[in-house]
Protein backbone atom coordinates (compact mmCIF):
# COMPACT_ATOMS: atom_id res chain seq x y z
CA UNK A 1 0.00 0.00 0.00
CA UNK A 2 2.86 2.35 0.93
CA UNK A 3 4.54 1.52 -2.37
CA UNK A 4 1.36 2.51 -4.27
CA UNK A 5 1.09 5.73 -2.27
CA UNK A 6 4.69 6.64 -3.13
CA UNK A 7 4.04 5.90 -6.81
CA UNK A 8 0.86 7.98 -6.71
CA UNK A 9 2.80 10.91 -5.26
CA UNK A 10 5.16 10.66 -8.23
CA UNK A 11 2.19 10.53 -10.62
CA UNK A 12 0.84 13.72 -9.04
CA UNK A 13 4.15 15.54 -9.11
CA UNK A 14 4.86 14.72 -12.79
CA UNK A 15 1.28 15.67 -13.76
CA UNK A 16 1.66 19.00 -11.96
CA UNK A 17 4.98 19.68 -13.68
CA UNK A 18 3.51 18.95 -17.11
CA UNK A 19 0.33 20.94 -16.51
CA UNK A 20 2.06 24.03 -15.16
CA UNK A 21 4.43 24.06 -18.14
CA UNK A 22 1.52 25.15 -20.33
CA UNK A 23 0.28 28.15 -18.37
CA UNK A 24 -2.36 29.42 -20.80
CA UNK A 25 -4.02 26.00 -20.96
CA UNK A 26 -3.79 25.78 -17.18
CA UNK A 27 -5.62 29.10 -16.71
CA UNK A 28 -8.16 28.28 -19.42
CA UNK A 29 -8.98 25.00 -17.64
CA UNK A 30 -9.77 26.93 -14.46
CA UNK A 31 -12.11 29.23 -16.40
CA UNK A 32 -13.72 26.29 -18.22
CA UNK A 33 -14.68 24.68 -14.91
CA UNK A 34 -15.94 28.02 -13.58
CA UNK A 35 -18.14 28.61 -16.63
CA UNK A 36 -19.53 25.11 -16.26
CA UNK A 37 -20.33 25.75 -12.61
CA UNK A 38 -21.99 29.11 -13.32
CA UNK A 39 -24.04 27.84 -16.27
CA UNK A 40 -25.32 24.82 -14.30
CA UNK A 41 -26.29 26.79 -11.21
CA UNK A 42 -27.59 29.70 -13.34
CA UNK A 43 -29.88 27.51 -15.48
CA UNK A 44 -31.58 25.98 -12.44
CA UNK A 45 -31.89 29.36 -10.72
CA UNK A 46 -33.60 30.83 -13.79
CA UNK A 47 -36.10 27.95 -13.88
CA UNK A 48 -36.91 28.49 -10.20
CA UNK A 49 -37.66 32.17 -10.92
CA UNK A 50 -40.85 30.82 -12.56
CA UNK A 51 -41.75 27.68 -10.59
CA UNK A 52 -41.78 26.90 -6.86
CA UNK A 53 -40.90 23.21 -7.02
CA UNK A 54 -39.37 20.69 -9.39
CA UNK A 55 -40.77 17.32 -8.40
CA UNK A 56 -40.86 17.38 -4.58
CA UNK A 57 -37.85 19.72 -4.22
CA UNK A 58 -37.69 23.47 -3.67
CA UNK A 59 -34.92 25.66 -5.07
CA UNK A 60 -32.36 25.25 -2.27
CA UNK A 61 -32.81 21.49 -2.16
CA UNK A 62 -32.15 21.10 -5.88
CA UNK A 63 -29.23 23.53 -5.74
CA UNK A 64 -27.76 21.53 -2.83
CA UNK A 65 -28.11 18.38 -4.94
CA UNK A 66 -26.42 20.14 -7.87
CA UNK A 67 -23.62 21.43 -5.63
CA UNK A 68 -23.12 17.87 -4.35
CA UNK A 69 -22.88 16.56 -7.94
CA UNK A 70 -20.60 19.43 -8.99
CA UNK A 71 -18.30 18.66 -6.06
CA UNK A 72 -18.09 15.04 -7.25
CA UNK A 73 -17.42 16.37 -10.78
CA UNK A 74 -14.65 18.57 -9.42
CA UNK A 75 -12.95 15.63 -7.67
CA UNK A 76 -13.47 13.45 -10.76
CA UNK A 77 -11.89 16.11 -12.99
CA UNK A 78 -8.97 16.44 -10.58
CA UNK A 79 -8.15 12.79 -10.02
CA UNK A 80 -9.48 10.70 -12.92
CA UNK A 81 -10.84 12.56 -15.94
CA UNK A 82 -7.67 12.97 -17.98
CA UNK A 83 -6.67 9.33 -17.55
CA UNK A 84 -9.79 8.16 -19.42
CA UNK A 85 -8.91 10.28 -22.46
CA UNK A 86 -5.28 9.20 -22.36
CA UNK A 87 -6.29 5.54 -22.12
CA UNK A 88 -8.15 5.59 -25.44
CA UNK A 89 -5.05 7.15 -27.05
CA UNK A 90 -2.70 4.65 -25.40
CA UNK A 91 -4.77 1.76 -26.75
CA UNK A 92 -4.76 3.20 -30.25
CA UNK A 93 -1.06 4.02 -30.34
CA UNK A 94 0.20 0.99 -28.45
CA UNK A 95 1.63 3.04 -25.58
CA UNK A 96 -0.29 0.80 -23.19
CA UNK A 97 2.63 -1.64 -23.62
CA UNK A 98 4.80 0.49 -21.33
CA UNK A 99 2.06 0.63 -18.70
CA UNK A 100 1.52 -3.12 -18.73
CA UNK A 101 5.26 -3.68 -18.25
CA UNK A 102 5.31 -1.71 -14.97
CA UNK A 103 5.30 -3.78 -11.75
CA UNK A 104 1.99 -2.26 -10.65
CA UNK A 105 -1.71 -3.04 -10.98
CA UNK A 106 -2.61 -2.01 -14.53
CA UNK A 107 -5.95 -0.58 -13.37
CA UNK A 108 -4.05 1.66 -10.96
CA UNK A 109 -1.44 2.74 -13.52
CA UNK A 110 -4.05 3.49 -16.17
CA UNK A 111 -6.72 5.29 -14.17
CA UNK A 112 -4.68 7.07 -11.48
CA UNK A 113 -1.88 8.26 -13.74
CA UNK A 114 -3.00 11.85 -14.37
CA UNK A 115 -3.81 14.51 -11.81
CA UNK A 116 -5.28 17.88 -12.78
CA UNK A 117 -4.04 20.66 -10.51
CA UNK A 118 -6.23 23.31 -12.19
CA UNK A 119 -9.35 21.63 -10.76
CA UNK A 120 -7.93 22.01 -7.25
CA UNK A 121 -7.93 25.79 -7.77
CA UNK A 122 -11.71 25.65 -8.30
CA UNK A 123 -12.41 23.39 -5.32
CA UNK A 124 -13.11 26.34 -2.94
CA UNK A 125 -15.85 27.54 -5.31
CA UNK A 126 -17.52 24.10 -5.52
CA UNK A 127 -17.07 23.50 -1.80
CA UNK A 128 -18.37 26.98 -0.98
CA UNK A 129 -21.51 26.29 -2.99
CA UNK A 130 -22.02 22.96 -1.22
CA UNK A 131 -21.61 24.58 2.21
CA UNK A 132 -23.87 27.52 1.31
CA UNK A 133 -26.77 25.41 0.02
CA UNK A 134 -26.21 22.83 2.77
CA UNK A 135 -26.82 25.61 5.29
CA UNK A 136 -29.85 26.81 3.32
CA UNK A 137 -31.47 23.37 3.57
CA UNK A 138 -30.56 23.27 7.28
CA UNK A 139 -28.22 20.27 7.50
CA UNK A 140 -27.45 19.29 11.11
CA UNK A 141 -23.92 18.64 12.43
CA UNK A 142 -24.38 14.89 12.09
CA UNK A 143 -25.51 15.30 8.50
CA UNK A 144 -22.49 17.51 7.77
CA UNK A 145 -20.23 14.84 9.25
CA UNK A 146 -21.69 12.33 6.80
CA UNK A 147 -21.23 14.55 3.72
CA UNK A 148 -17.50 13.68 3.10
CA UNK A 149 -18.25 9.94 3.28
CA UNK A 150 -21.24 10.31 0.97
CA UNK A 151 -19.14 12.33 -1.49
CA UNK A 152 -16.50 9.59 -1.44
CA UNK A 153 -19.15 6.92 -1.93
CA UNK A 154 -20.73 8.79 -4.87
CA UNK A 155 -17.34 9.39 -6.49
CA UNK A 156 -16.31 5.75 -5.97
CA UNK A 157 -19.48 4.47 -7.61
CA UNK A 158 -19.13 6.88 -10.54
CA UNK A 159 -15.54 5.92 -11.28
CA UNK A 160 -16.04 2.17 -10.86
CA UNK A 161 -18.96 2.27 -13.33
CA UNK A 162 -16.84 4.38 -15.68
CA UNK A 163 -13.78 2.12 -15.33
CA UNK A 164 -15.97 -0.87 -16.20
CA UNK A 165 -17.50 0.89 -19.19
CA UNK A 166 -14.06 1.99 -20.36
CA UNK A 167 -12.82 -1.60 -20.59
CA UNK A 168 -15.05 -1.92 -23.69
CA UNK A 169 -12.37 0.16 -25.47
CA UNK A 170 -10.27 -3.03 -25.69
CA UNK A 171 -12.81 -4.40 -28.16
CA UNK A 172 -13.13 -1.22 -30.24
CA UNK A 173 -10.86 0.16 -32.95
CA UNK A 174 -11.30 3.70 -31.62
CA UNK A 175 -12.42 4.10 -28.03
CA UNK A 176 -13.00 7.85 -28.12
CA UNK A 177 -16.78 7.40 -28.42
CA UNK A 178 -16.82 5.60 -25.04
CA UNK A 179 -15.48 8.75 -23.41
CA UNK A 180 -18.43 10.67 -24.85
CA UNK A 181 -20.75 7.96 -23.54
CA UNK A 182 -19.23 8.46 -20.08
CA UNK A 183 -19.90 12.17 -20.31
CA UNK A 184 -23.53 11.50 -21.20
CA UNK A 185 -23.82 9.24 -18.17
CA UNK A 186 -22.54 12.11 -16.05
CA UNK A 187 -25.10 14.41 -17.63
CA UNK A 188 -27.91 11.99 -16.72
CA UNK A 189 -26.60 11.73 -13.15
CA UNK A 190 -26.55 15.50 -12.74
CA UNK A 191 -30.32 15.55 -12.27
CA UNK A 192 -32.25 13.96 -9.40
CA UNK A 193 -33.68 10.49 -10.00
CA UNK A 194 -37.30 11.64 -9.60
CA UNK A 195 -37.29 13.53 -12.91
CA UNK A 196 -36.93 10.22 -14.77
CA UNK A 197 -39.80 7.77 -15.16
CA UNK A 198 -40.55 4.12 -15.92
CA UNK A 199 -38.10 1.54 -17.19
CA UNK A 200 -35.35 4.07 -17.91
CA UNK A 201 -35.35 5.15 -14.28
CA UNK A 202 -35.22 1.53 -13.07
CA UNK A 203 -32.29 0.78 -15.39
CA UNK A 204 -30.42 3.92 -14.32
CA UNK A 205 -30.95 3.03 -10.66
CA UNK A 206 -29.80 -0.59 -10.95
CA UNK A 207 -28.12 -2.06 -14.06
CA UNK A 208 -26.33 1.21 -14.88
CA UNK A 209 -26.64 2.91 -11.48
CA UNK A 210 -25.65 6.47 -12.45
CA UNK A 211 -28.70 8.01 -10.78
CA UNK A 212 -27.62 6.58 -7.41
CA UNK A 213 -24.39 8.64 -7.47
CA UNK A 214 -26.03 11.88 -6.34
CA UNK A 215 -29.64 10.97 -5.64
CA UNK A 216 -28.75 8.19 -3.19
CA UNK A 217 -26.68 10.31 -0.79
CA UNK A 218 -28.74 13.51 -1.06
CA UNK A 219 -32.11 11.79 -0.63
CA UNK A 220 -30.65 10.01 2.40
CA UNK A 221 -29.48 13.34 3.86
CA UNK A 222 -32.97 14.79 3.41
CA UNK A 223 -34.75 11.70 4.72
CA UNK A 224 -32.93 8.90 6.57
CA UNK A 225 -35.74 6.49 5.61
CA UNK A 226 -34.03 6.44 2.19
CA UNK A 227 -31.10 4.38 3.60
CA UNK A 228 -31.83 1.47 1.20
CA UNK A 229 -30.45 3.71 -1.56
CA UNK A 230 -27.08 3.73 0.22
CA UNK A 231 -27.19 -0.04 0.56
CA UNK A 232 -27.93 -0.19 -3.17
CA UNK A 233 -24.90 2.02 -3.84
CA UNK A 234 -22.62 -0.22 -1.79
CA UNK A 235 -23.95 -3.33 -3.53
CA UNK A 236 -23.44 -1.75 -6.97
CA UNK A 237 -19.94 -0.69 -5.93
CA UNK A 238 -19.00 -4.25 -5.00
CA UNK A 239 -20.65 -5.79 -8.07
CA UNK A 240 -19.09 -3.33 -10.52
CA UNK A 241 -15.65 -3.69 -8.87
CA UNK A 242 -15.88 -7.46 -9.38
CA UNK A 243 -17.08 -7.01 -12.96
CA UNK A 244 -14.27 -4.54 -13.63
CA UNK A 245 -11.56 -6.98 -12.52
CA UNK A 246 -13.03 -9.80 -14.64
CA UNK A 247 -13.61 -7.73 -17.79
CA UNK A 248 -10.29 -5.92 -17.41
CA UNK A 249 -8.43 -9.26 -17.42
CA UNK A 250 -10.34 -10.31 -20.56
CA UNK A 251 -9.53 -6.97 -22.13
CA UNK A 252 -5.81 -7.28 -21.46
CA UNK A 253 -5.86 -10.72 -23.09
CA UNK A 254 -7.66 -9.19 -26.07
CA UNK A 255 -5.15 -6.33 -26.37
CA UNK A 256 -2.78 -6.64 -29.31
CA UNK A 257 -0.30 -3.82 -29.16
CA UNK A 258 -0.59 -1.34 -32.01
CA UNK A 259 3.10 -0.50 -31.76
CA UNK A 260 4.56 -4.00 -32.04
Amino acid at each position, binding site marked *: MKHYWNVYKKFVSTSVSVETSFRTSFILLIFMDLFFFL*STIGSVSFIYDHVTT*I*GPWQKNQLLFFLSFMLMIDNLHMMIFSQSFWEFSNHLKTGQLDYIILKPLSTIFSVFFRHFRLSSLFNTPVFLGSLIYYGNQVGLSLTQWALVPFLLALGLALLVVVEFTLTTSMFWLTDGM*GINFLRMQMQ*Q*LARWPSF*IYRGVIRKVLMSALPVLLIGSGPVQFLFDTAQWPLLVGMLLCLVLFSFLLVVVWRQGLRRYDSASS
Partner: protein
Amino acid sequence: MPSELNANIQKWWITIKVSWVKHTAYRLNFFLQIIGPSLVFFFVKYNLWSSIYAGDSALTIKGFSFQQMITYHMWAFIVALVAQGHGSWNLSDDIRMGRISSYLIYPFNFWEFHTASWLSFQAIQIGIASFTLFSVSFLGFLNLPSLEVMGVGIAYTLFISLFWFTMQYFTGVLAFWLEETWILRVMLNIITYFLSGAIIPLDLYPQWLVNVLNYTPFPYLTYYPIKIFMGQGSHLTQGLFIILGWTLVFAYINHRIWKKGIRLYTAAGM
Protein backbone atom coordinates in the same frame (compact mmCIF):
# COMPACT_ATOMS: atom_id res chain seq x y z
CA MET B 1 -9.55 29.13 -67.08
CA PRO B 2 -12.64 26.84 -67.13
CA SER B 3 -10.37 23.79 -66.86
CA GLU B 4 -8.69 25.35 -63.80
CA LEU B 5 -12.12 25.89 -62.26
CA ASN B 6 -13.11 22.32 -63.07
CA ALA B 7 -9.93 21.01 -61.51
CA ASN B 8 -10.61 23.06 -58.39
CA ILE B 9 -14.21 21.80 -58.13
CA GLN B 10 -12.89 18.29 -58.59
CA LYS B 11 -10.46 18.77 -55.66
CA TRP B 12 -13.26 20.00 -53.44
CA TRP B 13 -15.58 17.19 -54.48
CA ILE B 14 -12.98 14.46 -53.86
CA THR B 15 -12.09 15.96 -50.46
CA ILE B 16 -15.77 16.02 -49.51
CA LYS B 17 -16.13 12.36 -50.52
CA VAL B 18 -12.97 11.30 -48.63
CA SER B 19 -14.10 13.20 -45.52
CA TRP B 20 -17.53 11.58 -45.72
CA VAL B 21 -15.88 8.15 -45.65
CA LYS B 22 -13.63 9.21 -42.73
CA HIS B 23 -16.57 10.58 -40.72
CA THR B 24 -18.66 7.46 -41.22
CA ALA B 25 -15.89 4.85 -40.97
CA TYR B 26 -16.43 4.24 -37.26
CA ARG B 27 -20.20 4.41 -36.99
CA LEU B 28 -20.47 3.63 -33.28
CA ASN B 29 -17.96 6.37 -32.53
CA PHE B 30 -19.81 8.79 -34.79
CA PHE B 31 -23.06 8.00 -33.03
CA LEU B 32 -21.58 8.33 -29.53
CA GLN B 33 -19.67 11.53 -30.31
CA ILE B 34 -22.11 13.41 -32.50
CA ILE B 35 -25.67 12.13 -32.16
CA GLY B 36 -25.51 10.71 -28.61
CA PRO B 37 -24.83 13.96 -26.74
CA SER B 38 -27.70 15.79 -28.48
CA LEU B 39 -30.05 12.86 -27.89
CA VAL B 40 -29.19 12.60 -24.19
CA PHE B 41 -29.43 16.39 -23.84
CA PHE B 42 -32.94 16.26 -25.30
CA PHE B 43 -33.86 13.24 -23.15
CA VAL B 44 -32.79 15.04 -19.95
CA LYS B 45 -34.69 18.19 -20.91
CA TYR B 46 -37.82 16.20 -21.79
CA ASN B 47 -37.77 14.49 -18.39
CA LEU B 48 -36.96 17.70 -16.55
CA TRP B 49 -39.84 19.63 -18.09
CA SER B 50 -42.21 16.64 -17.68
CA SER B 51 -41.34 16.75 -13.99
CA ILE B 52 -41.86 20.53 -13.79
CA TYR B 53 -45.24 20.52 -15.59
CA ALA B 54 -46.21 17.28 -13.79
CA GLY B 55 -49.00 16.50 -16.25
CA ASP B 56 -50.75 19.86 -15.72
CA SER B 57 -51.89 20.72 -19.25
CA ALA B 58 -53.27 24.10 -18.12
CA LEU B 59 -49.94 25.28 -16.69
CA THR B 60 -47.98 27.81 -18.74
CA ILE B 61 -44.53 29.10 -17.85
CA LYS B 62 -43.69 32.43 -19.51
CA GLY B 63 -46.16 31.62 -22.26
CA PHE B 64 -44.96 28.04 -22.76
CA SER B 65 -47.38 25.17 -22.26
CA PHE B 66 -45.79 21.71 -21.80
CA GLN B 67 -46.35 20.89 -25.47
CA GLN B 68 -44.78 24.18 -26.58
CA MET B 69 -41.80 23.63 -24.27
CA ILE B 70 -41.18 20.18 -25.74
CA THR B 71 -41.62 21.56 -29.27
CA TYR B 72 -39.02 24.24 -28.40
CA HIS B 73 -36.53 21.57 -27.30
CA MET B 74 -37.23 19.37 -30.33
CA TRP B 75 -36.31 22.30 -32.55
CA ALA B 76 -33.28 22.98 -30.32
CA PHE B 77 -32.16 19.41 -31.07
CA ILE B 78 -32.54 19.96 -34.84
CA VAL B 79 -30.87 23.39 -34.80
CA ALA B 80 -27.93 22.03 -32.75
CA LEU B 81 -27.45 19.17 -35.24
CA VAL B 82 -27.31 21.46 -38.25
CA ALA B 83 -25.83 24.67 -36.86
CA GLN B 84 -23.46 23.57 -34.13
CA GLY B 85 -21.65 20.57 -35.52
CA HIS B 86 -18.19 19.63 -34.34
CA GLY B 87 -16.68 18.65 -37.68
CA SER B 88 -13.48 20.66 -37.31
CA TRP B 89 -12.01 19.11 -34.18
CA ASN B 90 -9.05 17.55 -36.01
CA LEU B 91 -7.94 20.95 -37.24
CA SER B 92 -5.80 21.67 -34.19
CA ASP B 93 -4.36 18.13 -34.25
CA ASP B 94 -3.16 18.77 -37.80
CA ILE B 95 -1.18 21.75 -36.52
CA ARG B 96 0.10 20.17 -33.31
CA MET B 97 1.16 16.90 -34.94
CA GLY B 98 2.87 18.67 -37.81
CA ARG B 99 0.46 17.30 -40.39
CA ILE B 100 -0.07 20.68 -42.05
CA SER B 101 3.29 20.25 -43.77
CA SER B 102 1.40 18.27 -46.41
CA TYR B 103 -0.91 21.19 -47.11
CA LEU B 104 2.08 23.44 -47.69
CA ILE B 105 3.12 21.14 -50.55
CA TYR B 106 -0.30 20.12 -51.93
CA PRO B 107 -2.09 22.39 -54.41
CA PHE B 108 -4.99 22.54 -51.92
CA ASN B 109 -4.92 24.95 -48.99
CA PHE B 110 -5.37 24.08 -45.36
CA TRP B 111 -8.58 26.12 -45.09
CA GLU B 112 -9.93 24.64 -48.32
CA PHE B 113 -9.35 21.11 -47.05
CA HIS B 114 -11.04 21.79 -43.71
CA THR B 115 -13.93 23.70 -45.27
CA ALA B 116 -14.56 20.82 -47.69
CA SER B 117 -14.38 18.40 -44.75
CA TRP B 118 -16.85 20.55 -42.85
CA LEU B 119 -19.22 20.55 -45.86
CA SER B 120 -19.25 16.75 -45.89
CA PHE B 121 -19.89 16.73 -42.14
CA GLN B 122 -22.73 19.19 -42.66
CA ALA B 123 -24.24 16.95 -45.34
CA ILE B 124 -24.31 14.05 -42.86
CA GLN B 125 -25.77 16.25 -40.13
CA ILE B 126 -28.46 17.63 -42.45
CA GLY B 127 -29.37 14.08 -43.45
CA ILE B 128 -29.73 13.04 -39.80
CA ALA B 129 -31.68 16.20 -38.93
CA SER B 130 -34.06 15.68 -41.88
CA PHE B 131 -34.63 12.04 -40.95
CA THR B 132 -35.31 13.01 -37.30
CA LEU B 133 -37.60 15.84 -38.31
CA PHE B 134 -39.76 13.78 -40.62
CA SER B 135 -39.84 10.84 -38.17
CA VAL B 136 -41.10 12.94 -35.25
CA SER B 137 -43.51 14.73 -37.55
CA PHE B 138 -44.80 11.42 -38.97
CA LEU B 139 -45.30 10.07 -35.44
CA GLY B 140 -47.27 13.20 -34.56
CA PHE B 141 -44.84 14.64 -31.95
CA LEU B 142 -44.14 17.78 -33.96
CA ASN B 143 -46.18 19.89 -36.35
CA LEU B 144 -44.05 21.07 -39.24
CA PRO B 145 -44.48 24.76 -40.15
CA SER B 146 -45.40 26.00 -43.63
CA LEU B 147 -42.91 25.51 -46.47
CA GLU B 148 -42.11 29.22 -46.45
CA VAL B 149 -41.30 29.23 -42.72
CA MET B 150 -39.29 26.02 -43.09
CA GLY B 151 -37.33 27.55 -45.98
CA VAL B 152 -36.47 30.68 -43.97
CA GLY B 153 -35.59 28.61 -40.89
CA ILE B 154 -33.34 26.22 -42.82
CA ALA B 155 -31.56 29.05 -44.67
CA TYR B 156 -31.01 30.91 -41.39
CA THR B 157 -29.73 27.79 -39.62
CA LEU B 158 -27.30 27.01 -42.45
CA PHE B 159 -26.06 30.59 -42.28
CA ILE B 160 -25.43 30.16 -38.55
CA SER B 161 -23.55 26.94 -39.19
CA LEU B 162 -21.10 28.95 -41.29
CA PHE B 163 -20.54 31.31 -38.35
CA TRP B 164 -20.08 28.32 -36.03
CA PHE B 165 -17.51 26.88 -38.41
CA THR B 166 -15.48 30.12 -38.36
CA MET B 167 -15.56 30.00 -34.54
CA GLN B 168 -14.43 26.36 -34.50
CA TYR B 169 -11.73 27.21 -37.03
CA PHE B 170 -10.64 30.06 -34.75
CA THR B 171 -10.25 27.73 -31.75
CA GLY B 172 -8.42 25.24 -34.00
CA VAL B 173 -5.79 27.58 -35.46
CA LEU B 174 -4.88 28.80 -31.99
CA ALA B 175 -3.01 25.47 -31.80
CA PHE B 176 -0.02 27.37 -33.19
CA TRP B 177 0.31 28.86 -29.69
CA LEU B 178 -1.70 26.58 -27.40
CA GLU B 179 -0.91 23.00 -26.42
CA GLU B 180 -4.56 22.10 -25.83
CA THR B 181 -7.27 23.80 -27.90
CA TRP B 182 -10.05 21.42 -26.82
CA ILE B 183 -10.38 23.54 -23.66
CA LEU B 184 -11.38 26.58 -25.74
CA ARG B 185 -13.80 24.46 -27.76
CA VAL B 186 -15.47 23.05 -24.66
CA MET B 187 -15.58 26.52 -23.09
CA LEU B 188 -17.22 27.89 -26.23
CA ASN B 189 -19.78 25.07 -26.13
CA ILE B 190 -20.59 25.62 -22.45
CA ILE B 191 -21.05 29.38 -22.90
CA THR B 192 -23.06 28.92 -26.10
CA TYR B 193 -25.37 26.30 -24.58
CA PHE B 194 -26.05 28.56 -21.63
CA LEU B 195 -26.41 31.92 -23.38
CA SER B 196 -28.10 30.80 -26.60
CA GLY B 197 -31.23 29.35 -25.02
CA ALA B 198 -30.28 25.72 -25.71
CA ILE B 199 -30.79 24.66 -22.09
CA ILE B 200 -33.88 26.75 -21.33
CA PRO B 201 -35.70 29.33 -23.49
CA LEU B 202 -34.36 32.86 -23.10
CA ASP B 203 -37.91 33.94 -22.11
CA LEU B 204 -37.11 32.51 -18.68
CA TYR B 205 -33.94 34.61 -18.29
CA PRO B 206 -33.96 38.00 -16.54
CA GLN B 207 -34.94 40.71 -19.05
CA TRP B 208 -31.75 42.78 -18.47
CA LEU B 209 -29.64 39.75 -19.43
CA VAL B 210 -31.67 39.11 -22.60
CA ASN B 211 -31.26 42.79 -23.58
CA VAL B 212 -27.49 42.46 -23.26
CA LEU B 213 -27.40 39.09 -25.03
CA ASN B 214 -29.24 40.51 -28.06
CA TYR B 215 -26.06 42.41 -28.95
CA THR B 216 -23.99 39.21 -28.88
CA PRO B 217 -24.21 36.35 -31.40
CA PHE B 218 -25.45 33.84 -28.80
CA PRO B 219 -29.28 34.17 -28.96
CA TYR B 220 -29.12 34.03 -32.77
CA LEU B 221 -27.42 30.62 -32.59
CA THR B 222 -30.32 28.72 -31.00
CA TYR B 223 -33.16 30.81 -29.58
CA TYR B 224 -34.11 32.89 -32.62
CA PRO B 225 -33.77 30.04 -35.17
CA ILE B 226 -36.12 27.96 -32.97
CA LYS B 227 -38.54 30.88 -32.84
CA ILE B 228 -38.51 31.03 -36.64
CA PHE B 229 -39.35 27.32 -36.88
CA MET B 230 -42.11 27.80 -34.29
CA GLY B 231 -43.63 30.52 -36.47
CA GLN B 232 -42.73 33.32 -34.04
CA GLY B 233 -39.78 34.76 -35.98
CA SER B 234 -38.46 38.09 -34.77
CA HIS B 235 -35.12 39.93 -34.84
CA LEU B 236 -34.47 38.19 -38.18
CA THR B 237 -32.74 41.10 -39.94
CA GLN B 238 -30.87 42.14 -36.78
CA GLY B 239 -29.75 38.54 -36.29
CA LEU B 240 -28.54 38.23 -39.88
CA PHE B 241 -26.46 41.40 -39.61
CA ILE B 242 -25.01 40.49 -36.23
CA ILE B 243 -24.07 36.99 -37.34
CA LEU B 244 -22.70 38.26 -40.66
CA GLY B 245 -20.63 40.88 -38.80
CA TRP B 246 -19.17 38.33 -36.37
CA THR B 247 -18.52 35.84 -39.19
CA LEU B 248 -16.54 38.42 -41.16
CA VAL B 249 -14.63 39.51 -38.04
CA PHE B 250 -13.65 35.93 -37.19
CA ALA B 251 -12.85 35.06 -40.82
CA TYR B 252 -10.42 38.01 -40.86
CA ILE B 253 -8.95 37.07 -37.46
CA ASN B 254 -8.51 33.47 -38.66
CA HIS B 255 -6.70 34.70 -41.74
CA ARG B 256 -4.35 36.85 -39.63
CA ILE B 257 -3.74 34.05 -37.12
CA TRP B 258 -2.88 31.64 -39.91
CA LYS B 259 -0.41 34.10 -41.43
CA LYS B 260 1.29 34.72 -38.07
CA GLY B 261 1.08 31.10 -36.96
CA ILE B 262 2.61 29.61 -40.07
CA ARG B 263 5.75 31.64 -39.38
CA LEU B 264 6.04 29.97 -35.98
CA TYR B 265 5.29 26.51 -37.32
CA THR B 266 8.10 24.01 -36.75
CA ALA B 267 6.61 20.86 -38.36
CA ALA B 268 6.75 18.45 -35.43
CA GLY B 269 8.03 15.02 -36.43
CA MET B 270 9.73 16.15 -39.64
